[in-house]
């Protein structure tokens, strides 16, 4: 697979993962870029032992996790009603509503613990549990329980938020 093809296929997914982790558009873009710089540099060391997607998600999630080394911003991501609106291109009312809902979703994810944010983002990307276990390094049994709990928490928070 050529780099450009890889980038086209995976950059939207990686952006969503990073966005789920930091809930900040510019920061998420930087992290996405950092991920693909790494992907490009390491591509020749990739030996089909896993799917390329899993490999890229592993790099991206580690880059997210290491943000803890770089700033204290990470510790206080809070839900704020004044969070800057995403500059998604809004065309009509329907789209506006969608944008708002997406914003609420990211805010709800931001209330989860850091590692839970990564796990749920991978679930939302429809990755099989086996692959998520490979990315995170948790056993499948343990992961199943965790995913179940995180799904429940997120759905509850999302519905609570929607009621407000």
């Amino acid at each position, binding site marked *: 697979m050529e*780099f*450009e093809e890889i*980038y*086209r296929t995976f*950059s*939207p997914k990686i*952006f*969503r993962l990073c*966005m789920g982790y930091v809930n900040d*558009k510019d920061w*998420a*873009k930087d992290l*996405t*870029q950092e991920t*693909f*710089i*790494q992907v*490009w*540099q*390491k591509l020749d*060391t*990739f030996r089909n032992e896993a799917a390329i997607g899993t*490999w890229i998600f*592993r*790099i991206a*999630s*580690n*880059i997210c*996790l*290491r943000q*803890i*080394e770089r700033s204290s911003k990470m*510790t206080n991501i809070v839900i704020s009603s004044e969070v800057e609106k995403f*500059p*998604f*291109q809004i065309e009509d009312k329907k789209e506006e509503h*969608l944008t708002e*809902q*997406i914003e609420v*979703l990211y805010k709800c994810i931001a209330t989860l*613990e*850091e*590692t*839970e944010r*990564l796990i749920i983002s991978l*679930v*939302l*990307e*429809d990755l099989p549990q086996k692959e998520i276990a*490979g*990315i*995170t*390094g*948790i056993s499948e049994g343990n992961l199943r329980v965790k995913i179940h709990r995180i*799904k429940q928490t*997120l*759905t509850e928070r*999302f*519905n609570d938020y*929607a009621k407000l």
Partner: protein
Amino acid sequence: MQNFDDIKNLWQKTEEKNLPDAAEILLQVQKARKKMLLKNVGGGLLLCGTFIFIALLGWHYQFQQWTTRIGIILTLIAIIMGIIFNSKLVQLLLKQSDLTLSNTDYLQQLIRFRNTQRMIQTKGITLYFILLTIGIILYMYEFAQRDLTFGVCTYAITLAWIAFNWFYTRKRTIAKQQKEINAQIENIERLLKEY
């Protein structure tokens, strides 16, 4: 009331239209490489410059005794070492980190790096002070010999100053660095525990 599948649909509708294209990423890679190359060249030049400086110093002043020259060399080594330990060490370690590991392995790797950093820094500072002290003592010997009273006074003042740094500044610096690193390790351990 939305269920999890609705949430998943919503998630997958997020599209960022302003992501840079692949060509731009490759441009960034090139830029990063150039920067790295310049940095390496810069570091090499700095090192060469220092050695030339030492050589010129020895040649220009024609010090009578070997103690003076060794003193200068030790002092300079201490200073260079200090600069490296203070700024480059973390980057050097982090550059080796393997991002393709699983999350838990990666976090453990980060903890190992931090522990290494903690050890090297503590030992590094101690070594820095020892080299600096020996360097200064040797350097001053030639001048102190020329006038005994002046020599004794200068030695006394210098040694007092070194003692102050050894018992106060060194301890404080180590404590401060340890605190920072320990906080980092604690944070990483918290992440690991979440898994």
